[in-house]
């Protein structure tokens, strides 16, 4: 298996409450002192950062057999692939000089080098595991910090290229799947209440918050003036509340509107299993419904983890990569429909 495909592996691990919480992550923004931030650094300075961070990672036992990608060297379709796996940012997807991502071989920890900051180190896992990923990221941060000595001010904390990250430099986030709340039209209420708590909501692909298949990413906005524990604690409590509400909404849907919701699920299945052309937007909408059905024991042996993988597998970059580089939208839509039909050839007679 090639390295790029190996990076898919983190997507199908399962984990607590993974019927609602798809994944949890915690990332730290860190910089080396006395070297300009990447945007302003010269070629040799970027090289120096890359060398020093790589050396520190080589000395770290967590990275015994690392998986690394030089964004400078890999092709744009490969960068897109990593982006779709939620492993690199939009900024890193652009490529650029002396940029790299290094992952542990279990794809639970990673360091991006020379993104907006010298280092963006993060831990990620599937399901609701916010404390776990935070502890993992924090442990790696202190190990690398001991070796590299990050830029720090007693007043402003860890110094970052953008002052919106200053202080702890910590961004914790979870990807939620909320079809239940979406059906009973309570999403906008939740989205609206987030800023008051110092939290931000984004859509599936991160940047814009447009509703994409009822997937929402929630993260802390404030990084200065709050401790790491406060940040994680607040986000955890909010997620727990949303989790309860979502479970309640699903129960209500299947108890009180069974015929309606079953019809929705099977229509989604019908389209996915038989369509000949499928855009990525439509696929995400339909797969979201399938995922809701799986939670209630529909669609045979199909699991949440299988679905997580399928969602990523039909993204444009993944199709382009596996389909031998076809970039035309219509050809891709046909390929997507083919992949979906093949994956959904399951025994559904018992439902």
């Amino acid at each position, binding site marked *: 298996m090639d390295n790029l495909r190996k990076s898919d592996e983190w997507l199908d691990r399962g984990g607590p409450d993974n019927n609602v919480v798809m994944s949890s992550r915690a990332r730290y923004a860190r910089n080396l002192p006395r070297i300009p*931030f990447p945007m302003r650094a010269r070629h040799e300075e970027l090289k120096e950062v890359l060398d020093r961070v790589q050396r520190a990672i080589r000395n770290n036992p967590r990275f015994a057999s690392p998986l690394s990608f030089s964004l400078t060297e890999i092709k744009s379709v490969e960068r897109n692939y990593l982006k779709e796996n939620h492993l690199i940012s939009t900024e890193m997807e652009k490529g650029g000089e002396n940029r790299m991502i290094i992952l542990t071989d279990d794809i639970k920890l990673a360091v991006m080098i020379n993104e907006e900051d010298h280092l963006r180190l993060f831990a990620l896992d599937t399901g609701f595991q916010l404390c776990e990923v935070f502890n993992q990221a924090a442990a790696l941060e202190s190990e690398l910090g001991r070796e590299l000595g990050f*830029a720090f001010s007693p007043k*402003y904390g860890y110094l970052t*290229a953008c002052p919106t990250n200053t202080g*702890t430099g910590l961004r914790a986030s979870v990807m939620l799947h909320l079809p239940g709340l979406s059906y009973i039209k309570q999403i906008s209420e939740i989205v609206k209440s987030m800023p008051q708590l110092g939290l931000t909501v984004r859509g599936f692909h991160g940047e814009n918050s447009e509703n994409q298949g009822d997937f929402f990413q929630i993260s802390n906005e404030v990084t200065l003036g709050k*401790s790491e524990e406060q940040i994680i604690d607040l986000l955890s409590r909010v997620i727990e509340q949303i989790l309860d509400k979502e479970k309640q909404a699903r129960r209500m849907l299947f108890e009180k509107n069974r015929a309606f919701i079953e019809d929705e699920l099977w229509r989604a299945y019908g389209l996915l299993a038989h369509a000949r052309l499928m855009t990525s937007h439509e696929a995400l909408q339909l797969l979201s419904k399938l995922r809701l059905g799986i939670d209630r024991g529909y669609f045979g042996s199909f699991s949440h983890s299988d679905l997580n993988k399928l969602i990523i597998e039909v993204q444009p970059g993944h199709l382009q990569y596996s389909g031998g580089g076809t970039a035309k939208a219509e050809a891709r839509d046909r390929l997507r429909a083919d992949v979906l039909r093949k994956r959904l050839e399951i025994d559904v007679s018992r439902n």
Partner: protein
Amino acid sequence: MLGKHICMSCKQNPAAVKLTKLIKGSVEELWLCQECAAQQNPYQKKIGALSIEQVLATLLNQNKKEMAAKPRSVDIECSSCGLPFDSYRSTLLLGCSECYASFEKYLIADLRKFHGATTHCGRVPEGAPPVLEHNRNPREIRRRLREAVESEDFQRAARLRDELRQIELRAEGKES
């Protein structure tokens, strides 16, 4: 950029009113739609019914880029990396860690807008002294908090409240 304002509170409706207030010599602007202005005008005289939570919400809601890009041009550059301050204004990206010292005077207001706070109180590197230890007296902070609310300095109040909450959290941790 100054043309059309979106309500800073609900981030949906166009802003209908601009609330301005003089806080310790600097002017703060708040753009709100009619609804939100009626709901949570932090500058009405009677603040009894208004929780600090609500005021804090308004502060946190402010559109960052827009707030940071106030058209006040400042003709200075970082003594270390040479980044002109106006370049930061347009990209929101600083040039190096020394920029924080070079632009300190102007950055403080941005930090307050982004975070509702200006002082770090999280973890520190190994070997560094813990932060904020000098003013960790809850009674003193509570006194200052009341003072800030009475003088309607809500930004300072929010900051103090956070600080107080953190000390309380820490105290709870010790008890259990």
